[in-house]
């Protein structure tokens, strides 16, 4: 039996409310900054008081053809370009047929769709192209068009698990020979639909997201994009690329429980984590840090804590949620937090749980409150979505960092 190839990560990129690139974001996270503020992208009479993690800095540095796309596509492009540049690729990838592109998104061009609706409702001339942005598939299509990727190009839309599913499936495609390299990305912009939708479910916290806190009342919405360049290790070594980390394993399960609520026992989440550990070929004791889904909603944090407690038993690693700092960025979350897991491996500095000041004593896991310096060999990223979609990825440090 042949050993499956290792999946090297050679580039990372992200755009969040804390920074316009991966380093800026991570530095701010480690400093304990909170990227929540007033909603400025659009107005909302009912939920305008809810703090959000909006990207306030200009996206104007993007090429004109990208600025005509939806906001989500713009964010995806910015993060992907950074990741490709770090990996040593320019604006067009070599051997495009060997590249896959998996983008994760939940709302895609919903912000443009809303404009179309508003203009149609008030009988104003509406640009039909705006509805074209509604297609979630347009995110990966725009990236493939921009960077010349010609292999499997698709957009994963598994709600808030989309980003991590793009990473996990991207690694699987390489591992099983369907691609040599994959651009895995997750992106979502703020929209009226999600603000009102989550508002209608009564799961937004007026004080800002406080994951694992005793007084938590819900999440804070955000917008972001994260991207990773995944390569067959042989390809990375052949071109002498710097390997930042490895995707060691992944898990994907479904709760099959409820259209929006998680399984209260967290059984699907637990199964996804166990799958990822098995694929990585390690026991739970090897995991040094977990970037939890940790939305700050009472139900999610309770279910995830129960799952984490069962998986790690009495060997609990350091666990934090970064959603109190960068918001819940939906389809982007799994990709952005995968980038954070890679940075944790590279820098030996782990981010704390911004927003949590008094951990819930009823939860069986204790979150890391402030950033901490500690070398770790393996990190884990959880992302769970509406409908019971569960995703988990395990990352391993590059040899040089061990």
């Amino acid at each position, binding site marked *: 039996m042949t050993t499956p190839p290792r999946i090297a990560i050679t580039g990372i990129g992200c755009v969040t409310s804390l920074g316009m690139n991966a380093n800026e974001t991570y530095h701010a996270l480690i400093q304990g900054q909170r990227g929540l503020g007033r909603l400025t992208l659009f107005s*909302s*009479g*009912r939920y305008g008081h809810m703090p959000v993690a909006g990207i306030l800095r200009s996206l104007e540095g993007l090429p004109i053809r990208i600025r005509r796309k939806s906001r989500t596509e713009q964010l995806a492009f910015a993060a992907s370009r950074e990741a490709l540049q770090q990996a040593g690729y320019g604006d067009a990838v070599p051997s495009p*047929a060997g590249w896959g*592109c998996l983008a994760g*998104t*939940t709302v*895609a061009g919903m912000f443009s*769709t*809303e404009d179309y*609706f508003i203009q149609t*409702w008030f009988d104003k001339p*509406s640009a*039909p*192209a705006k*509805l*074209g942005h*509604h*297609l979630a*598939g347009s995110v*990966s*299509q725009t990236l*493939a*068009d921009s960077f*010349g990727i*010609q*292999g*499997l*190009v*698709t*957009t*994963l*839309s*598994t*709600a808030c698990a989309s980003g991590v*599913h793009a990473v996990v499936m991207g690694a*699987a495609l390489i591992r099983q020979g*369907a691609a040599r390299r994959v651009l895995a990305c997750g992106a979502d912009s703020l929209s009226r*639909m999600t603000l*009102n*939708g989550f*508002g*209608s*479910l009564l799961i937004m916290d007026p004080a800002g997201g406080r994951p694992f806190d005793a007084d938590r009342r819900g999440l804070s919405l955000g917008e972001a994009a994260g991207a990773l360049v995944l390569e067959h290790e042989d390809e990375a070594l052949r071109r002498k690329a710097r390997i930042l980390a490895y995707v060691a394993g992944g898990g*994907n*399960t*479904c*709760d*099959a*429980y*409820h*259209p*929006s609520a998680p399984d209260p026992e967290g059984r*699907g989440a637990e*199964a996804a984590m166990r799958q990822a550990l098995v694929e990585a070929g390690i026991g739970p004791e090897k995991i040094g840090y977990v970037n939890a889904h940790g939305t700050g909603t009472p139900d999610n944090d309770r279910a995830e804590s129960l799952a984490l407690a069962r998986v790690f038993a009495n060997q609990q690693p350091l666990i934090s949620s970064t959603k109190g700092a960068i918001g819940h960025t939906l389809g982007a979350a799994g990709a952005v937090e995968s980038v954070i897991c890679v940075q944790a491996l590279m820098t030996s500095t782990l981010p704390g749980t911004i927003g949590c000041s008094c951990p819930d004593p009823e939860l069986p896991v204790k979150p890391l409150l402030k950033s901490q310096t500690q070398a770790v060999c393996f990190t884990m990223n959880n992302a769970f*979505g*509406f*409908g*019971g*979609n569960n995703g988990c990825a395990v990352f391993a440090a590059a040899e040089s960092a061990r």
Partner: protein
Amino acid sequence: MNLGVYGLGIASPAGIGKATVIERLKNNTAPVPTLRSAEDATLGLFLPALPVPALSGGRRMSPWLRMALSAGQEAVSDCSAEQRNALNIVSATGFGSLKHTADFLTNLIRNQESEPQPANFIFSVHNAAATQTAIALGSKGANYTLSSVDTGLEQALVLADKLSGLSLVLAADEYQPLANESQHKARYWKAVPVDPSSSACPGEGAAAVLVGPAQPGQITIRSIRAGFLPRKAPDVELEQAEINCLLAEAGVTWRDLDAVITNASQVPAWDRGLDAVWSHWPVTTEIPRRSYKPWTGEFPSASGCGLAITILAMQMGGWPDVHECKMKTVLFYNRSRFGFRSMVVLQR
């Protein structure tokens, strides 16, 4: 690749359920005239025959969700409870549930955010079809949803091939007046000749294929490609090499092919790339080449329904108007004007 087809379900203009579709294929009664009524913006072409799903919120579910559930449940009808429990689900869609999205946004604008509707929000997410199917079947395996403007089911098959065990691969899209109106404004349909025999009219539908490791006696998916090409004139030689490579992977040659089923729409502007590839390939003149579009109409998941209809035609042993065709080895080929290309070699 060697994926066996264990089950199939369909809810489309060609019929709801395999039996109806096979009957129509046998009688060569293409459903296009029915579809034309879609132009008058009526919703729910198939709903009268689709049961209300026995799920929470079933009555409020959009045609998209009902079609997907109907096709999915038909495809797994022979599965044991144990198989359903471990089932992976990979679903594909272009627009997802436009109805729930449109209803939520319309209400938002009309009522100025005063009466938000959580059910429409929950069912508007693209993964609702895959996760509702998982809830209906109790399936706790891997669960993916992908979105693509074209060739979604073929992309989903590529992902399903990376999973172990049985996978239910779904593709669904619903007709929505809003999208149609937008397409009219964008002069999307203006390219379509006013010709009753043309298949280029709006459609909707869902297809589901249950796949797993191939076993003797099954229709098998021997090789597959799903890619994205630059939107310019195709490099015909490169494409021929790709097709040859695909056939070689399947262990067949051109001579073994009994039919080629394509996405030809009969709209010259849309078929330019497809025509260029085939006009440079003389051997294909001897192989029956047919389009599935008269059986599906135009919508993002049309290729999924086309593939399901092709599998049914293979089970039946012939394509409607090609009686001498044995349909034992078939090349299913899509080249869309949006840049997506898929190729599948199927064998009976």
